[in-house]
Structure formats: structure tokens, C-alpha cells
């Protein structure tokens, strides 16, 4: 295992040293109540009676991937290497990319590049029959939930970037109800199954507290 130890010492996620933000949260709250009125999402995230947990995690992971993919896809005109030099989530947080295989040491890349790496990686997991089996009867791997947790952690970063960097464009395109609904569903599902560490959720803490009061 020491062969791969070098990667462990690096971090893809670190808080940036800068002044804390105050206005971003207030600005977000202005449009936060807009949703699609999509019924009771709190009930919808629960594991259906008799259902296999991994199967439920899998089908929802695919759905969340598709939603983030589509929502981010509407912002490619604005999320450019010039406008978003780093994958940031507000002034305090910045993400650097590493997948531990091809890129072992985290590298600083622009936001669109980061998202491309991220989505390509997730799609590779979803397409991997040994992780997300598609044939009836094929079993999930023992570490399946760990893979799902990594996927969710990374999908969250796209939401964090969108909310902090492009929310005004989302409003201009009249997508805020759609974004908010997808994010709310994402957070409710995450908390139901403990898929993202609380610390990772810090960039959107204020937003999340309106969804899940502590």
C-alpha cells in the first residue's frame, strides 16, 4: 500500500485564506423558496419497503448525475476558463482535481476543466459494470456505498460552484426553481443515507439549513 501513499498526503479541498462572506448567503436566500412544488421530497428519498439499498442508491445516483449535468450544461457560455479560473465555491473554498489514478497529485484547474474531469470520472463509474451492474442478477461490489459517497461529494461541488458563481445567470434563465428543487432533493437524499460529510457541505451551509433545520 505504500506505493500509493504519496497521494494521501495531498488535498483536493482546502479553505482559501480570505475574508468570510456575508452577502452571498443573503442573496441566495432571496430566491431560495422557488421550487417546482414537486410533492413531498422528504418522503420520496426514503428507501421503499422491501427495496435493496444499493439498487435505490444506484438509480438515484444516475438521476442526480443527469440533473447536475443538464443544469451545468446551461452555464457553459458563462463558466469559462477566463471567468472561472479555479473551481471555487465562494471566496473561502477552492477545489483542486485529483482522481488518484491518472492524476494522483491534486492540480489546480479552471472550473469548466474541473467539471469536465469530474463528470467524465463519474460517468466512468456509472458505466463500469463491476460497480454499477446493469444486467439483472449481477451483484454490487462490497465497496459500492463508498463509491456513491465519492460521487455525491463531487456532485455537491458542482452545486456549490453554480450557487456561488452563476446563480444570477440561473435566475436570468428562469431556472432557479429547477435548480433549487434538484438541490433540495439532492441534500435530502444525502442526509437520509449519510453520503456527504458535514464539513464538505460547508460552502452551502446557510442554504442547507433552510432545507434541513438542525
Amino acid at each position, binding site marked *: 500500500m505504500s506505493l*500509493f501513499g504519496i497521494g494521501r498526503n495531498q488535498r483536493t479541498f482546502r479553505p482559501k485564506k480570505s475574508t468570510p462572506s456575508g452577502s452571498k448567503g443573503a442573496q441566495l436566500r432571496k430566491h431560495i423558496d422557488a421550487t*417546482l412544488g414537486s410533492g413531498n421530497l422528504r418522503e420520496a428519498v426514503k428507501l*421503499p419497503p422491501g427495496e435493496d439499498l444499493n439498487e435505490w442508491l444506484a*438509480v438515484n445516483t444516475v438521476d442526480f448525475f443527469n440533473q447536475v449535468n443538464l443544469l451545468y450544461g446551461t452555464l457553459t457560455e458563462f463558466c469559462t476558463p477566463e471567468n472561472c479560473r479555479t473551481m471555487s465555491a465562494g471566496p473561502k473554498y477552492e477545489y483542486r482535481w485529483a482522481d488518484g489514478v491518472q492524476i494522483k497529485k491534486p492540480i489546480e484547474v479552471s472550473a469548466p476543466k474541473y467539471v469536465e474531469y469530474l463528470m467524465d470520472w463519474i460517468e466512468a463509474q456509472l458505466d463500469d459494470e463491476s460497480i454499477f451492474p*446493469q444486467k439483472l442478477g449481477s451483484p454490487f461490489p462490497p465497496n459500492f456505498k463508498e463509491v456513491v459517497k465519492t460521487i455525491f461529494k463531487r456532485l455537491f461541488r458542482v452545486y456549490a460552484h453554480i450557487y456561488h458563481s452563476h446563480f444570477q445567470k440561473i435566475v436570468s434563465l428562469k431556472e432557479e426553481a429547477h435548480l433549487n428543487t434538484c438541490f433540495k432533493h439532492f441534500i435530502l437524499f444525502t442526509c437520509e443515507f449519510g453520503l456527504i460529510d458535514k464539513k464538505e457541505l460547508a460552502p452551502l451551509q446557510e442554504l442547507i439549513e433552510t432545507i434541513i433545520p438542525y
Partner: protein
Amino acid sequence: MDGYDATVRLGAINLKHGRAADFDSASPDVSVSSPVTRQKAAAAKQFIENHYKNYLQGLQDRKDRRRALQRKVQESQISAEEQEEMMRNLERRETEYMRLQRRKIGMDDFEQLTVIGKGAFGEVRLCRAKGTGEIFAMKKLKKSEMLSRGQVEHVRSERNLLAEVDSRCIVKLHYSFQDSDFLYLIMEYLPGGDIMTLLMREDILSEDVARFYIAESILAIHSIHQHNYVHRDIKPDNLILDKNGHLKLSDFGLCKPLDDKYSSILLENEDLTGQESTSETEAYSVSPWLMPKERLQQWKRNRRALAYSTVGTLDYMAPEVLLKKGYGIECDWWSLGAIMYEMLIGYPPFCSDDPRMACRKIVNWKTCLKFPDEPKISAEAKDLICRLLCDVDSRLGTRGVEEIKAHPWFKGIQWDMLYESEAAYKPTVTGDLDTQNFEKFPEVDGPPSVTASVGPWRKMLTSKDNNFIGYTFKKSDILKSLESSDADIRVNGSLKTPSLITLLGQIDLQDTVIPESEQKPEA
């Protein structure tokens, strides 16, 4: 539903009124983004709305199935052990269904069979699902043709309507997907052929047969109106028969009548509405039955070719559609009137060799709508036709479908039982693969080109083809799979001896995951 917005954009199937209005919104904020971005946003929003509607409905359906089974086992006199067995059975099938939902679908899943329709935009072909052996109709559309001929909205609208409307009156869409060159719609196969085929074979229908099919058409048209869609292009080739002779609404025409090629005709509004010269008036007032018989036969033969050409036919189109004035659901009832006329008389009321002439006749329907002495039709039938082929304001259906149903010609129709009753006409169908009710097409193209690329899936879903965002669709039939999947699934129990590569792969995979979880942000 009066007062449809006159600015709703034309398309064979229009989007819901509210949604169309959203698309046409002139908000100053939206102007800061490019048309491509706005298009992506509109498609993304619709995808998400559809997703949540289907997602929540799916969960509700699942609860209903479970509750229904629980009620059933409690009422029956079986042992607790057997009850538990039945519940476990349902749970296993629900799990299988859930897995099928996230399985990607593509061309490799289907064996291509007989071509049953072919045109400039693509083809319709029988196909068999490799996994289940089920037979479908595969409608394959060339993306390049869709784009160059302004058909994108049409294709999206059709796919959206078929995905949204679940009705026995509408051809079912089971899957839709795409590759780099084509869009695919995998639909229910209806081996009975279409009403056009029936009319070409029978020449005219008896009033009883016509009444049956006009009645079923009314239910089909009403079912899309209830979802706020206007078909706008209803014609005999869009009315398909299943193996029992019941009718379903579809759009196998592969064409859009109102494209640029016809704008020169339609732009001459004055000419269409005016009666400038006596000779022209006389020319287009000639009734179809006065045409030489062989010319009429030629018209019918050309009619089938038109169905698969880029120009299609305008013969059934309402005047308000041709004149590009605002139109609403009433335009579909006009089309129904023209079809009814053809069923009883033998040809459409405004048919002509010259599409321009057909347009003029339709726009001048007051002068041109006439009935021949033969064949004889009842006074009620004639009255109904005249109440459908008339001004929008006085047209039956404008104030609701019930006023059409109440017409005396439909006396005796049991509207609630139409699709359960025996059909007025029973098509000849021999086996699941029978295509005798469709035109024969030579296999000139041979097997499809292998150059079309499929991946990556995500880019098919979004960025690469902006115009076809969210095209993928899957509507697995849980009830069917519940009935058919009684065979136990064999889990692959043979464990291979791990090879060095496998071990390294596993290590890499673990390393991919573990380091991330250990990298915690500083406090």
C-alpha cells in the same frame, strides 16, 4: 378552450400553451444569453419537470402495487408463509424494474427487421428487442435532416407528447435515444396498417365502419387535447390500426407539410383569399368527382408517396393553419371532418394534383365544399361534415368535445366501450412479424452504417447536440415484467481466480476512494 395565443409557434405538435409562452418570453434578462444557452435552459427545465413528475408518480404507483397485493393476500385463504412468499416476489420484481430503469438503451439492444416506411427524414422499421424478443416499430430520424429542414421542434414535440400521454388511443413510446447521426423512437408496433391503407383498399367505407373510426378518432384527438397539445396535422396516415382493428393516433408521416418549400404558396395570402379571375375560380371549383377516373386513381397512388416525402399533404389541414393565423385545438376537428368526407365519398373534399390548388380550395371552402350525387350518404353524415368543415366560431368541438359526441350521426355509439368492443374492421394479421398491411420497401440501404458513434452518453444527453437535449426516454412496463418474469435469475456464481491485473485494478479502485475520504479540510 377559446382564446389560444395567436403567437404560438407553428409545429406539427405544439408544446403546452404555458410552456410555449415561456419560450417566447421577451424578458430583458434573458437577452444577455445566447440562443443556444436559452435553448439548453429550456430543454433542461423541461427534462427536470418531466423527471420529477415521473419519479413521484413512479413511487406512488409502487406503493399502490404493494398495497393492492397486501389487500389481495389478506383476503385470500393462504398461509402466512405463502403470503410472505408473494410479498418477496413483488419486492424482487420491483428491484429488477428499478435496475432496468437506469440501464442504458441503444441500437445494440435491437435486431432490425422489415422496413415499413421510408422517406427523406429517415425510416420506420420493425425491430425486436434482443433481451425480451418483443416486437416494436423503430422510427429512425436523421439529425442532419431535422436540423436543415427546421424539424427540431417537431421532433421534440412528438417525443414529448408520446412520452407524456399514456393513453390507449395513442401509439405508445417505449424508448427514445440517439447517437451522433440519428434519433430513435422505439414505439408500439401496430400491424393493422393505417386508415389510408384501408381507404385505398376499400375505396369507400360504410357509414357504420366510418362511424366507428370517426368515433375512435374523436377519443384519440381529445386525449391529446386534454394534455394541451394540438396535433395540427391529422390525416389518414396518422391513424394506425392495431391487430384487432382499433385505432391509435400517431405520426408516421416523417414529414412536415409547412416547411420553406411551401412558404411561397402560403405567403400569397391575397391570392388565396381573393377570387380575382373567373377562370381561376372555375379552375379550383372543379369538384373531385368530376375529374377523370384514371386521374383520381393516380392521385390516390401519389398520395402514399406523399406520406413519406418531405412535402407531405395539405389536404386535411384547417384553413387557419394554412393561413398562419392563430389556431387552437379546433383545427384538429376540421381535419377529422375532411377524413370523414373521404371515408364516405372516396377522396378528400379539397384534393387536387396541385398542392397550391388544394390550399386555395381549403381557404375557399365555402365555395369549394360540395357533395356528389353518388355515393349516397345520410343527411346526418352530411350535416356533421358541414359542421366540422366550417368557420372556427361555428365549428363543432370549439366549445368542447361533447358537442361533437352529441351529434345525431353518433346515435348508438357507446363512447365508454368503444375500445372494448369489437372493431368495425378486422385487419388481416398473420403472426407478430406480419407487415402485409404496410407498403413494401426494398432493402437498398443494407445494414446501417457503423460510423455513428454512441458515446460518451453524457454528451449525447447535453452538450454535443444542443437541439436534442433530454431525448432519451424509457417507459418500462412494470406490469408486463411482473407477469412474464417468472423465471429465476441465475446469479453468476463462478468466482474466477483473481489475476494480477484484477488485483491491481481493485487496489487502484480502492485507492481512488480511500484517499478522498481521508482528506479533510482544515478547521
